[in-house]
Structures are given as C-alpha cells and as structure tokens.
C-alpha cells in the first residue's frame, strides 16, 4: 500500500485570533490510500480540510500535493491538479438541473463529446437519471449530496477530498455512499472527513484522529476504537 507520498503537510497551522484550530500538523498521505479524518466537534478537521483545498490560507506551514506547493493557493488552482472536492454543506448549483451540474464538472476536463458521455455515465452510475432535469435546489438533502458526489466523480480526479459525505443521509443512502467511496478508491487516493464511526467501519480504512488541532493517533479503525485516549476525547471522561 505504501507507495509515493502524494499529499503532505508540514507544520501546518491555522489560527483564528487566539484559537489554534490547526496546530503544527504533519500529515502524510500515500498513493491509493483511503484515509479517514475523525475527531470530536472543534477538533480542527474541517479547518484542516479547508487548508488542503485552498479555501483557507494557513497561518503557517506548508501543504504539498505531489510536487506542487498548494499553500495559500486559490481553490481552482488546487482543483486543477486533478483534485475532486466535496464540502461539508452541500455546495451545488441550486438553480441549475442535475445534469447541468454534472456536465459543468465534466466539461472542465474534457471536450464536448467526451463530457457529454461522461455526464451520461455519471448520472447512470449514481442513479440520478430519473431526476436529471430537476433543479438541484428542489431536491432532498441526500440527493443534493449525491449530486455533489456526482460532480466529483465526473471530474475523474486522482485525489479526492470529501468532507462529511454521509451527513444527513438515510441508512440506505449511507450504504450506497460507502460503496461509491470504495469504488472511487480503486482509481483515486482519498481523504474522508467523517463524524460517523459506523460509516468509517463500512469503508474500513486507515484513520487519523484529530484532537484540539493536532493529530492524536493514526492507525486502523480497530486499534483506534480500542485506544483509551480516543475514548477519552470522544466521551470526555477519564479512564477508570
């Protein structure tokens, strides 16, 4: 599994006033890995995520994606490296149809004909065909999440960053999302920020636990769920 390091942060820090949301984080992601970031609320995982995608410019430290220094770059420059991004709150084009949403993603990378067939394939793959002409703004929350995932899929990224992809989904939808993530992982290296332990077990990967802006532990889910420190930060009481 360990090949080349494709994403690396060195002493990455993001401070808001006196709050150290992310504090000197050194993080490595290897090629073809599926890594989950977990941690209690306010642990800094979403801030860390935003630093990776260029949505926030870190206070200090570096983000390197392959050979590209992504620190403080514009989000579109990071995306252009071939990085597919899904944000925490579904970020979609509400006034446009499902199909147009997907097409806009495919067309960034491909010519006219290829992007059309890619859009068709993506709609089929994510079972969005029946609602292809519906405005995304009128869809249910879970469906909007899927449209956003569809946009990520249609861009055929080699690196995928997902922030809470299963948030607000029904159990069935969550299972389908887990399947999709495993499928995407065949061709892409991935980081998934998640709350839901159940979901992380489903995609069974290496897990990084954030706590107070720093990495607490990094291991498989089995080791992590047995770790007393993790229980402590999640449940908030001391070991007996």
């Amino acid at each position, binding site marked *: 599994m360990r090949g080349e390091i494709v994403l690396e942060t060195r002493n990455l820090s993001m401070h808001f006033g006196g709050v150290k949301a992310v504090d000197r984080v050194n993080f490595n992601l290897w090629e073809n890995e599926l890594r989950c970031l977990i941690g209690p609320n306010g642990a800094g995982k979403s801030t860390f995520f935003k630093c990776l*995608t260029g*949505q926030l410019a870190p206070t200090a430290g570096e983000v390197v994606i392959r050979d590209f220094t992504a620190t403080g770059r*514009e*989000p*579109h420059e990071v*995306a*252009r490296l071939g990085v597919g*991004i899904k*944000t925490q709150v579904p*970020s*979609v*084009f*509400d*006034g*446009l*149809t499902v*199909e*147009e949403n997907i*097409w*806009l*993603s495919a*067309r*960034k*990378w491909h010519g006219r004909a290829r992007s059309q067939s890619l859009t068709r394939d993506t709609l089929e793959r994510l079972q969005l065909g029946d609602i292809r*002409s519906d405005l995304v703004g009128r869809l249910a929350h879970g469906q909007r999440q899927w449209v956003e995932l569809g*946009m990520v899929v249609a*861009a055929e990224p080699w690196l995928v960053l997902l922030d809470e992809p299963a948030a607000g989904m029904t159990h069935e939808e969550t299972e389908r999302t887990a399947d999709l993530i495993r499928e995407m992982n065949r061709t892409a290296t991935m980081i998934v920020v998640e709350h839901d332990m159940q979901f992380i077990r489903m995609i069974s990967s290496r897990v990084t636990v954030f706590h107070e802006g720093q990495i607490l532990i990094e291991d498989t889910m089995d080791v992590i769920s047995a770790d007393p420190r993790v229980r402590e930060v999640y449940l908030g009481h001391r070991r007996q």
Partner: protein
Amino acid sequence: MNWGRENRWRVAVVIVGLAFTLIAPAALQLFTIINLTTAIALALLALSLALIWGYGGILCFGQTAFFGLGAYAYTVAAINFGGTTWAVLVAVLVAAAFAAVLGYFVFYGRVSDVYMAVITLTATLILYNLIRRTSGPEYKIGHALLGGFNGVTSPPLNLPWAPYSMLFPQHVFYVGMLALILGYIFCAWLVQTHFGRVSVAIRENETRAELLGYDTRLYKLGLFTIGGALAGIGGILFCNGVGRVTPDVFRLDFSAQAIIWVIVGGRGTLLGPVLGSFALFYVTSWLGTQSAVNNYLVLGIILIAFVLGVPRGLLPTVVGWWDAGRSRRAMQRREMRLRRRRGGRASTAGEAAHEG
C-alpha cells in the same frame, strides 16, 4: 440542457425584430423613428445589464458608465477623425477597456456583491462630476471641446466607405435595430457556450465553480468586459439618436433606471429587460409631456410594485403562467381520456360506437 424550446422562441423574437425593422420606417413618423433610435440605444444598455446581472450575477449599478464613455469616446473620436467608422471601434474599445480595468480590481480584489454595486455606482458619479467640470476652452481632446454640462454635439454615423455621406435618421434606426438584434443573437449564443454556462454556474455558487477548477475571477472579468462593450455600443447609438452627449448619461437616476428596466423585464432573460427598457422609456417620455406627476415618483412606484408583486419580472412571470396553463391543459386532456376509457368500458356497445 434542453435549449431547443428556448431557441425556437429566440428565433421568433429575431424574426419579429427584423419585421419591425422593415415595417417601422414606412409606418411611423420620422419623429417617432428618431425617438425609437434612442429607445434602441437604451435597450442595448438593458441587454448588457441583462447579460452580466441576469446571467452572470454581477450587480453593476453603474452600467451607464460604459454607456456614457462609449458615447463620449465615439463623439470625440468622430470629431477628430472626420469619419465615424474608426470612432465606433474606438468607442467600443474604450468602454470595454474601462470595464476591464474596473473589473480587474473588483474581481481580483475579491470584492463582494454589495461593494461591487457601490464601486460601479461611484465610478459613474466620479465620471459625472469630472466631465461636468470640463466647460472651459482648455478642456479639449484633439479638436473636440468637452463642453462641460452642455456636452458635445455628436457627428451622425456615416457609411464606412463614404466618410462624407452621413446617414439619415431612418438609416440610423436600421443600424440601431441591426445592432440590437445582433447583440441579442450574440448574447443568446454566448449564454449557451461553455463560457456562458460557467458564468451562470458562478452566479449560482461561486465557491463550487472554483472547486471544480474554474478561475471564477477570469470568467467574471470576461463577462463584465463583454457587457461593457455592449453598453458602449448602446452609447454610440444614444448620442446618434439624441444628437449630442452630455454628462447626464452619468447621472445617478439614469444608472438607477437601467437597474429598474432589468427588474421589471425579468432577470435571467435577455428579452425581458429589452422590453422593460422600451416600456419604461415610453412611460417616462409620456409622463414628461404630461408634467402632472413627477417622473421619479412613478418610476419608484413601478419599482416597488414589481419588487413586491412581480419579483421575477414580467417575462419570467408570463412564461410561468403559460407553462402552468399548458401543463393544466395537458392534465385535463389526460383526465378526459381516462374518463372516456373508463366510461367506454361501462357503457353499452351501442353508446361506445356512438361516441366513437
């Protein structure tokens, strides 16, 4: 995306426009034709704002800055060059260049929507105060005196191959209608290109467009510059219709009117704001002859009425009714068919035959 139906409508609009162009000079008085030329100029301004605000989501409160600069640049260049062909080109370039420079600072400086409106409005008012103060003989560009608040007399358009044969008013009307129709076709084409669809996507969600890898600043700048050029063309026609250009083109109430046309006509359409500009142009000029009520009072009431009562604007609302009516009729037909089938099964063979 299904453009088929929308484009059939657009073809119809172009045909109606062309027919109007051919019929109007024969059917209407010269005075009306000259007036119409001014209305067409304003319609081009409305079209430019329909494009950048309605499709691109860029609220430019000072679209008249490009319109006025186009008029001034055309006039000054035409006086200096003797002919108007190059003057037209200069005017479009000046308007577009000003939009590009202003847009560069706004979009690359990541200025938010509200401040965008304030900055563009301020730019217009600065131009107003600047040009109003140019009344001395020392304020001239080449041979052209800027003339302060009196403005400058604009040389009428001439044929490109004959600099000394000026166009008659009805010919300027033809040029104007042609410019408006071509402008409309251009915008309709543009919003269906990859560039146009990304611009609409940016209106919907700029962050998402960036996360897909689009440099939204560049797209907005491009669209804004195109809008500036279109408004500049409107300015050229405007000073041809009126015969002169004064600093009034940069006035606050004029820039506000452009916004009102778009709100009344309907954001997100191209034809709506054009119709809105025509309608309100005639309302205001009719009120001007009445002098019974204040013009601005009526415009204000119209604006409030539309914002509260018809927030989507005229055209989208009418299209909405049309669609609702059509789906209702389709549903009624379906119901009737169902009822007939059910009735047919229950009734005797003789009745069914009678019905058939």
